[in-house]
């Protein structure tokens, strides 16, 4: 790859904000950060923000098993269009990513992707909640994140054992916090709206009970526990209290839980069906406050592609989930009353740190170049038909958003240029 310089932008990273150019060497490392740099290819970033690429801790790439909805390649294309340079593939594929051979398969697919694809693996075999996966063997292959996402580990004893077993491996146990007995049959948030619509609901307490249990087990075992897609005010309050008490629990929140409420389900459009469900405006407020004060460490998309025909089903029959990679930054920047540095912190260097993705979340000479160039003033309207993802189930269709990713450099390669993927 020829030398690349991104000129004239404002660099924003964890050290603050300053003017500067970034020179990417032929081998894909950052060669220099400074002023007046030149290169074979020059990208004019005047008026734009140059920031470390985003890291998504929660991406459903659907491969293997549901390639009609997304593949590792198409998902990575969607990721770089949203400014992501690293995504963490979720293990609820078919077959489940729960053994060495499937981990290797997905890692191999990731090598041809447009960005860094990290692979997570299940906590229990086939996510059935009965038997632990070979976590030590998978950790040796580079798996740092274990989750049964799509469902929580219901059995208290098994979850305790998973936490204890994980301790010497230095890995994170990420929980889809949902008590299945309490949420059973629910297709949206249980409350005034579900009661009016005549749809079975999932109470907030289904999430909160599991968060409460995992806090207790984390205290018991000392394991590193991460709560995925936190969506209720009660769960946030418990996580805040646990951290104040010294329990090293971390948490993420999705763009949709920061922006949308259960009222969105009023027209029975299954594009708004997601687990955990869209909650009340009080919960949205709590998510925003939690993200602002750091109780919720980062934004994670829970990018969940589904084909149009499955989202056309009646609300209760349609699968849950929405895509999010391409709109995450813009939704956060438009909807949240947070400084740019904080929004970028929650999208980039904090999730990079949680995952231990050392080549991400920094702009520094000698490190791999993972960069995103954003026009923070651009305004655009979300059109599902223009989605880069293989699926188009975005809940933000028709919304006018502020700020847009225009270029992305992943592992030293300009993979997204002027709004187009380069390969």
């Amino acid at each position: 790859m020829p030398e690349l310089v991104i000129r004239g932008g404002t660099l924003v990273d964890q050290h603050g904000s300053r003017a500067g150019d970034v020179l990417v060497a032929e081998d894909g490392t950052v060669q220099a950060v400074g002023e007046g740099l030149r290169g074979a290819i020059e990208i004019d970033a005047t008026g734009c923000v140059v920031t470390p690429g985003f890291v998504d801790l929660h991406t459903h790439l659907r491969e293997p098993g549901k390639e009609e909805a997304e593949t590792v390649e198409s998902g990575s294309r969607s990721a770089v269009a949203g400014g992501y340079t690293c995504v963490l593939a979720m293990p609820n594929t078919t077959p489940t990513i729960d053994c060495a051979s499937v981990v290797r398969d997905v890692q191999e697919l990731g090598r041809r992707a447009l960005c860094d694809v990290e692979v997570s693996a299940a906590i229990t075999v086939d996510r059935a909640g009965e038997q632990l996966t070979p976590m030590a063997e998978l950790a040796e292959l580079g798996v740092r994140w274990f989750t049964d996402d799509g469902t929580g580990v219901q059995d208290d004893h098994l979850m305790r054992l998973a936490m204890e077993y994980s301790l010497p491996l230095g890995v994170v146990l990420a929980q889809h916090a949902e008590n299945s007995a309490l949420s059973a049959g629910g297709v949206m948030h249980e409350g005034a709206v579900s009661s009016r619509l005549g749809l079975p609901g999932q109470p907030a307490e289904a999430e909160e009970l599991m968060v409460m249990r995992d806090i207790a087990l984390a205290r018991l075992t000392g394991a590193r526990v991460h709560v995925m897609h936190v969506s209720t005010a009660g769960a946030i309050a418990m996580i805040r209290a646990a951290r104040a008490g010294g329990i090293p629990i971390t948490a993420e929140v999705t763009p949709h839980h920061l922006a949308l409420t259960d009222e969105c389900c009023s027209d029975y459009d299954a594009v708004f069906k997601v687990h955990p469900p869209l909650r009340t405006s009080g919960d949205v407020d709590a998510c925003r406050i939690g993200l602002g004060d750091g109780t919720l460490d980062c934004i994670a998309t829970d990018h969940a592609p589904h084909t149009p025909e499955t989202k056309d089903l009646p609300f209760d029959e349609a699968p849950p989930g929405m895509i999010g990679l391409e709109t995450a930054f813009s939704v956060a920047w438009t909807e949240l009353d947070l400084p740019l540095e904080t929004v970028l912190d929650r999208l980039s260097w904090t999730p990079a740190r949680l995952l231990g993705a050392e080549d991400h979340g920094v702009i520094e000479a000698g490190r791999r170049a993972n960069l995103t160039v954003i026009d923070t003033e651009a305004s655009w309207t979300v059109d599902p038909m223009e989605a880069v993802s293989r699926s188009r189930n975005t809940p933000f269709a028709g919304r006018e958003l502020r700020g847009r990713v225009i270029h992305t450099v992943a592992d030293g390669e300009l993979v997204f240029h002027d709004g187009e993927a380069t390969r």
Partner: protein
Amino acid sequence: MSRTQAARRADEQANDVDGVSEQTADAPPTTARPRHLLSIGELGADGLRTLLKLTDTFVEVGQREIPRVPALRGKTVVSMFFEDSTRTRMSFDTAAKRLSADVMSFAAGSSSLKKGESLRDTVETILAMGVDAMVVRHRSSGAPWQVARWCDDADLDRPVSVLNGGDGWHQHPTQALLDCYSLLERRGRQVGETPDLSGVKVAIVGDIRHSRVARSDIEAFTLLGGEVTLVAPPTLLPPSLVGWPVRVSHDLDATLAEVDVVYLLRLQRERMEAGLLPSLREYTAHYGLTAARARRLGDGVTVMHPGPMNRGLEIADDATRHVGSIVTDQVRNGVATRMAVLFWLLGGQIDA
């Protein structure tokens, strides 16, 4: 043919019918004609009153020797029942036939749905055949809204009306219309009078949580001025009643002493299997209209049930013969009500 022309032609046809035009002209619409009938709430108080007055006309038609008018001749009504229902389907089909519409039937059990065809494909296939109205019954709450969206989005020569024949736990608007009509009739409303239930106290008893009848009836009774009390064990109430214009009681005997109407809902036996009730016996003892309760009920109290009844469960056999029972009136008025709905939505309304 444009929408207006179609409407005018239907009006002319209606004017051909002895009695129909005059009576409906006495009851001019107070609200714009909607394209679909999906819920009572969307219909609103004016729409509700308009339809109830229009029902008078078709009650009269039903009393004729040949209870048939040519009002919807040339129109095609398709009933699409994705959930078993005998009475609602028969009632709609009879209504459409008495209006001289062509009637097509789609039953999920015998259809391509079993071969994996989606709801959307089924709807689009039927739209392509050319229809004027779809009556949709579906076990999923909200399905008629999706069908209405697809109809509105489709590139069609003429608009298609969607009638909600009952969706999941959500709405059953024609049931609420026939319930209001039957109750008003029992309370002495005369033909042509403005429908009004001001001050009428109604107890709706039973499985409110899973009941589309309850959701539609609460809205309809309230829009007409009635006061609704829900009587049910907490496990059979919706998780939230925020915004519902109702009182709640768990004491059926105390409530029965105060109300003018007791509306019993059908109890599905699977509610007990799901653990929402300890036993059917306990349900009947606390929430059933037993023979003893029926004996204590004043003659002036009206007893209603949407059918089919579980005799001995939510209503005792003796109680079905209470002098205030209008259960068969409900069924009879169902046809006239649905004629009114089809007539109004499909351009039979008098615009002048």
